[in-house]
């Protein structure tokens, strides 16, 4: 006995003698046996860790053989092994836990969740995918690569709005919430350099998003910036690229031919349409052709001369001049450099970026970013992080594009406008007043009154600069095992300065000076608006502060895991803004002159008394929020997870009373790892997880208040007192909108990850939504008022599929994103069902609100073709063919009499991305598709043509003689104009087309030189890439060559193809 005891003692002491031991090993990938460089080997319960080198090897000092080591690497299952394992077998393989292209963790902005244990619906866009496109801003890279996300360009007020799973509201704000790291980002999102972004997580369902409460109804986009790691050697990353895009194709614009336009003018002249304008003492502008016809009628020029000049003008197409003198190749340069490193106690990252864009119209944009981030672990359980993000961006105006050069009254332009003569000298065009009048009036006492478009922009530089500084601090303390607390603070200050100069040679300034010039009977001249330039200045400063305190709990027991967070946050955002105008401005001397804003002066041309227009204002806005939130997830047996989250928000927005309206947002979810069950025998799907969530989030519009409010609008120039107008009308029940969503998802992976992905089905209900009620305007507040009277439902499915088709030397991977989306209005107060309310002009679709139909629907008047005798468009009134346009566009047509086409937003959309690689070459091809929707196209409107010079090439297809009605749907031209007839045609079913299209979004070709640099240990990665984007449509359903994404104004152009070449390197 005693001997055995002594032996044990000796062995133990021997063990102690050999206590400090160096362990060496190698970590490899279980599938392809390749070494994993950069894997982390950490001693549990200590901060001691190391990483593997390029060969996958490591060495670490351990206390004893029994010390447990934790081996981890992103994209692989964590392994915990005893040190003694390495002594026995020095090689350890890690098996991949998911497709390498996706991340193992998701970031919600409040916590980082392991995907395995999450119940919510998240879309991850990783770094590699983000780098397949080269835009200057980050959000535009999401289109076409993020599952469930589409970009809306066709509804009223959309302007490239990102949409996550379609709509959750009808009248409320539709933008998703954008979060950068942990906080809502208040600044301009284009300030963020895409090279600073590590990944983007999109929170799509209630379990994911309800943690954000009243702002999350439209989904949340969480941008995670790059961070440094501990125990990492210093790395330098570099990215530089240059892009070019040619001039836009102006033949895409629907412009009426000059010959046709002039024919119309000649016809109108004979009818006397211009008689009034020709004798109008107000000297309204007339086109050159009308001037020629008038001079011919007065005998000032011969008929032959007039005809010769007019025929010459028929051959002019202003687009040629735009192409020659205005548009140019656009270039973009992007440079980014980052350094990061980390020791045991601290990690740091510094990055800088510079972007410079020159647009097709020579408008300039440049942006400089600087970023620092430092995490310090002074003692074992405390970690302090400080970061700063600085952006300076500047905008400068360029040349006026198509549609921005026009005559003022009636604000149209004629297609035979000439910007320069044959030698290239700039020509003047008629602007506010009749040309000869502007040229000669005043006998030299006035400023030159001519407008030279090719010169004028040089005298109206508009610049703005944006300085954005964000600083954040984070202290995290581990209280005991499993429980930690952290406090986060972010301060942001963004200042935007605008400066619009109209110098003394600009038409804008000269026109104002002339209009207010007083010349008395003796010829004495008084310039009430002083000669010189006009300077408009604006400034806006946004400051926001956010403070959050949070407790985190994460404890794993033998069979279960409980993780929870709880906390509170407070947020304050203030915007101070002011604008000012200076007259008589001399840029060289920085001087200006005072003007008299209190008296009215007669206009030089028409004698009307008017005040000098002022542009001075000051304003301040402040929003405050206080919130409390909590989130808990319990996993049993690594198979069953239940999650709950809740949040309460209160705000200072008028009417949102803290006592009345604590609007709690909550969610509940569950997930089940079916593949871990003993009864699960499906071999080809080794991973299958079912999850379901249900919860609510909200939507708040800062403009909605539940009280009648007035806004001070300025100074009454007649009484010199402040005047006010109504801003909102008292509606006692006005409150936040609520959106509830049910989400059911299935995640799966096949053997060796050949096929992986997820299928989700969701159903959402928006209730208490803001809806426009059409009102009897005898009530005095106008014909519309907003109430919480609306509700809608939406449902759809998101499918995300990743396949590894070929995995040999030639690799081919495919990602397919497919989404189905349908929405339907279920309640919307519409006392009038008159058809014309549901017909909205071409691509500026407004909410239809018809119960049972999509929120944005396309309706049209039923058409009975054209009248065989007159070419008049025909509709149906009470089932009979009718040409009573007043009734057809008025109360004679109810919405039930209209033809319903479908949704104005795509009902099926997604992307199809293929990645090919062979040796060191890589090729990524992205295709985006939008299907199942409609749009209304523009056509000739005779009233607009006569009054506003707005033509359309369909004019050439119009009905002209009996028999044409069999070949065309374009009505005949009639005089006098009948705007009800034009409205009827504009809204008829012949002008509605399918908007379905398939687009080639990007092509990215890369060559990796890393293999050749193995000899040079300092260069870790070197890649050359070539990128092409805006490549246009592969297919479109409409036969009119219209790209439905670029068709929302009369003068829309398509973005030209862009090509970029760049290099990426890591040292």
């Amino acid at each position, binding site marked *: 006995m005693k001997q055995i005891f002594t032996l044990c003692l000796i062995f133990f002491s021997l063990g102690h003698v050999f206590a400090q031991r160096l362990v060496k090993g190698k970590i490899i990938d279980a599938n392809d046996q390749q070494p994993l460089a950069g894997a982390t080997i950490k001693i549990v319960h200590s901060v001691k860790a190391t990483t593997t080198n390029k060969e996958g090897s490591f060495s670490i000092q351990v206390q004893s053989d029994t010390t447990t080591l934790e081996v981890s690497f992103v994209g692989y299952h964590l392994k915990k092994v005893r040190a003694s394992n390495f002594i026995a077998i020095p090689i350890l393989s890690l098996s991949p836990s998911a497709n390498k292209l996706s991340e193992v963790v998701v970031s919600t902005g409040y916590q980082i969740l392991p995907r395995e244990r999450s119940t919510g619906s998240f879309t991850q866009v990783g770094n590699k995918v983000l780098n397949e496109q080269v835009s200057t801003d980050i959000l535009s890279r999401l289109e076409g690569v993020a599952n469930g996300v589409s970009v809306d360009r066709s509804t009223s007020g959309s302007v490239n709005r990102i949409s996550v799973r379609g709509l959750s509201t009808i009248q409320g704000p539709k933008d998703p919430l954008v979060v950068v790291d942990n906080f809502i980002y208040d600044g301009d999102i284009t300030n963020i350099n895409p090279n600073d972004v590590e990944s983007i997580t999109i929170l799509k369902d209630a379990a994911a998003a309800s943690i954000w409460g009243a702002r999350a109804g439209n989904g949340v986009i969480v941008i995670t910036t790059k961070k440094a790691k501990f125990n990492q050697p210093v790395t330098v990353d570099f990215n530089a690229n240059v892009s070019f895009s040619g001039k836009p194709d102006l033949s895409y614009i629907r412009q009426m031919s000059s010959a046709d336009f002039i024919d119309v003018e000649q016809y109108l002249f004979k009818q006397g*349409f211009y008689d*009034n304008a020709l*004798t109008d*003492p*107000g000297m309204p502008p007339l086109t050159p052709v009308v001037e020629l016809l008038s001079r011919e009628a007065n005998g000032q020029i011969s008929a032959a001369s007039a005809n010769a000049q007019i025929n010459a003008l028929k051959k002019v197409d202003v687009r040629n001049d735009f192409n020659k003198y205005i548009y140019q190749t656009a270039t973009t340069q992007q440079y980014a450099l980052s350094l990061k490193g980390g020791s045991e106690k601290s990690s740091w990252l510094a990055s800088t970026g510079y972007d410079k864009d020159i647009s097709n119209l020579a408008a300039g944009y440049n942006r400089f970013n600087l970023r620092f981030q430092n995490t310090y672990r002074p003692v074992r359980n405390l970690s302090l992080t400080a970061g700063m993000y600085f952006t300076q961006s500047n905008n400068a105006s360029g040349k006026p594009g198509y549609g921005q050069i026009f005559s003022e009254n009636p604000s149209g332009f004629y297609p035979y406008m000439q910007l320069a003569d044959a030698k290239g000298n700039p020509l003047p065009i008629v602007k506010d007043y009749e040309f000869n009048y502007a040229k000669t009036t005043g006998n030299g006492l006035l400023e030159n009154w001519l407008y030279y478009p090719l010169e004028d922009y040089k005298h109206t530089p508009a610049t703005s600069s944006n300085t954005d500084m964000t600083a954040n601090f984070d202290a995290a303390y581990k209280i*005991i095992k499993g*429980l930690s607390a952290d406090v986060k603070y972010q301060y942001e200050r963004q200042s935007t300065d605008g400066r619009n100069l109209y110098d003394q040679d600009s038409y804008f300034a000269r026109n104002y000076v002339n209009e207010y010039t007083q010349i008395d009977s003796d010829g004495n001249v008084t310039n009430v608006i002083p000669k010189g330039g006009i300077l408009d200045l604006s400034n806006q400063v946004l400051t926001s502060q956010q403070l959050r*305190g949070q*407790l985190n*709990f994460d404890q794993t027991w033998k069979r279960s895991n409980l993780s929870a967070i*709880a906390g*509170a946050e407070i947020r304050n955002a203030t915007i101070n803004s002011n604008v000012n105008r200076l007259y008589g401005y001399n840029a060289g001397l920085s001087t200006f002159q005072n003007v008299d804003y209190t008296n009215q002066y007669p206009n030089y041309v*028409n*004698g*009307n*008394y008017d005040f000098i227009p002022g542009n001075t204002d000051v*304003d*301040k*806005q*402040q929003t*405050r929020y*206080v919130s409390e939130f909590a989130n808990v997830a319990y996993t049993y047996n690594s198979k069953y997870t239940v999650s709950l989250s809740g949040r309460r928000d*209160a*705000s*200072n*927005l*008028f009417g949102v009373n*803290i006592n009345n309206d604590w609007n709690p947002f909550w969610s509940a979810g569950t997930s089940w790892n079916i593949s871990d069950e003993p009864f699960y025998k499906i071999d080809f799907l080794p991973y299958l997880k079912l999850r379901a969530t249900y919860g609510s989030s909200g939507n708040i519009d800062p403009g909605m208040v539940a*009280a*009648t*409010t*007035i*806004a*001070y*609008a300025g100074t*009454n*120039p*007649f*009484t010199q*007192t402040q*005047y*006010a*107008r*109504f*801003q909102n*009308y008292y509606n006692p029940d006005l409150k936040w909108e609520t959106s509830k969503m049910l989400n059911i998802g299935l995640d799966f992976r096949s053997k060796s990850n050949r096929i992986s992905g997820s299928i989700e089905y969701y159903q959402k209900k928006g209730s208490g939504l803001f809806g426009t009620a059409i*009102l*009897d*305007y005898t*009530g*005095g*507040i*106008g*014909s519309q*008022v907003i109430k919480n009277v609306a509700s809608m439902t939406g449902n759809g499915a998101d499918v995300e599929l990743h396949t590894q088709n070929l995995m040999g030397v030639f690799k081919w991977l495919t990602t397919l994103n497919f989404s189905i989306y349908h929405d339907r209005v279920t309640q919307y107060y519409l006392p009038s069902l008159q058809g014309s309310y549901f017909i909205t002009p071409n691509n500026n679709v407004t909410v239809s609100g018809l119960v049972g139909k999509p929120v944005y629907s396309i309706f049209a008047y039923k058409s009975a073709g054209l009248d065989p005798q007159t070419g008049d468009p025909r509709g149906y009134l009470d089932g009979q063919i009718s040409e009573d346009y*007043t009734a057809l566009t008025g*109360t004679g047509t109810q919405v039930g009499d209209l033809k319903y086409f479908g949704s104005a937003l795509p009902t099926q959309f997604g992307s199809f991305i293929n990645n090919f690689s062979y040796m060191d070459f890589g090729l990524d091809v992205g295709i985006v598709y939008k299907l199942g929707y409609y749009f209304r196209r523009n056509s000739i409107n005779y009233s607009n043509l006569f009054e506003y010079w707005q033509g359309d090439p369909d004019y050439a297809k119009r009905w002209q003689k009996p028999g044409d009605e069999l070949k065309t749907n374009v009505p005949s031209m009639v*005089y*006098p104009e009948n*705007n009800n007839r034009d409205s009827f045609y504009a809204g008829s079913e012949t002008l509605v087309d399918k908007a379905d299209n398939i687009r080639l979004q990007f092509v990215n070709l890369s060559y990796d030189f890393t293999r050749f640099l193995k000899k040079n240990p300092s260069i870790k990665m070197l890649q050359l890439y070539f990128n092409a984007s805006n490549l246009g449509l592969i297919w479109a359903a409409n036969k009119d060559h219209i790209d439905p994404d670029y068709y929302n104004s009369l003068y829309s152009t398509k973005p030209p193809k862009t090509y970029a070449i760049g290099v990426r390197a890591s040292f």
Partner: protein
Amino acid sequence: MKSQIINNRGIHILIILIVMLSSSCKKYLDAKSDQKLEIPTNLNDLQALMDNYATINFVYPAAGEVSSDDYYLKDADYSALFYNADKRMYTWQKNYIFNTGASGNDWESTYNAIYYANTILENIRSIARSPENAAQWDNVKGEALFLRGYQFLGALQIWSQAYDEKIAGTDLGIPLRLNTDFNQKSVRASVNDSYNQVITDLRSAIPLLPSIPLNAFRPGKQAAYAILARTYLCMRNYQLAGIYADSSLLVNNQLIDYNTLNPSAAYPIPNLSTEMIFYSVLNSVKPIYFKLAKIDSNLYRSYADNDLRKTIFFKDDLDGTFSFKGSYTAAFYQAAGPATDEMYLIRAEAYARAGDVSNCFKYLNTLLINRYKTGTFTALKAPDASSALNLVLLERRKELVMRGLRWADIKRLNKEGAEIGLNRTVLGVNYALPANDPRFALSIPEDVIALSGMQQNP
């Protein structure tokens, strides 16, 4: 065991945090979200609403002027009218003569102005009137009452038949909005009740309004008197009309001597002249736009050669037609507000109808001497009251051309048997509006009828 206590402590901390937050929340959340927003509860706010000149001074229904015979349109200009509703109103169609509410029409702007007045009248009840704020308190309330009465009167002239004592109790008037509840259903009151409301509002305004307001953009006592004179004139209560015209003239009876004006100026009559009692202009609608509206040639011929109004009011367009440049606003806006010359004419008419010929001419001649070339005017006279009345009405026609008053005059004079009918020929088609035709009460915008269920004019 240990972890349990820690957990409990953690929860306690959380609870304390939440409680602290909730209690300090309220004050933090009381900050205004937009500095410029206010709930209108104090006098400055209410006065600021009443100084919203776009609503107070630039709103008055123009449909009556469009429908009357002060002017006509050339065929080409008629054809060039953009809105079909304008064309229909010009040719006295039965319906669809107003654009829908969303585009803006007379009904919408009138009731919008009435909403402003009602907001003041409701909110001022909760503001105590004290010696310090008395002047402002009275002024604001007076302005609101004046505005409401004035707008109700304007609406009555357009959408109701002229006042007829016998049937005023059943004739359809206008909806009388007296509060800000926009959800309340609109109901047409009788003509009688409508006029009573106008009179009540204006009379209540008189003691509250200042004798001399800041300027003509704000109503004073004189404006209230003047509009009451107009109201009683429309009701053909000539005695009361005369009394109120007299009250107005007692405040200020100064006239502009047209000899001092320059007829070749674009707008010879200056803005805010001594004759202007309250600045109010008709809604801008295309048919009466100064460039298009041509003065009726018969009317033009009725001015004598020495009558300065011929050259001050009218511009020779050199093609045989004449347009109007005599606006009291020295701009292309059509003046609709009360003026001193109008008061003289009402006073004279009241005397004529009462049989007092000498006083009638006292006022008429005082006005006219300022309208003729110096030294060329011979005082008017007439043998009896009935011819005196005819002279007054003729001068009224010549003086108050393009002032938004002709429509109401035609309607009330027809109730006395004047048989004034209107005729227009457009593009070769003749349109007629016979005297006392039901269309003299214009149709209410169809969308209002559809939404409110009110009775449409026959």
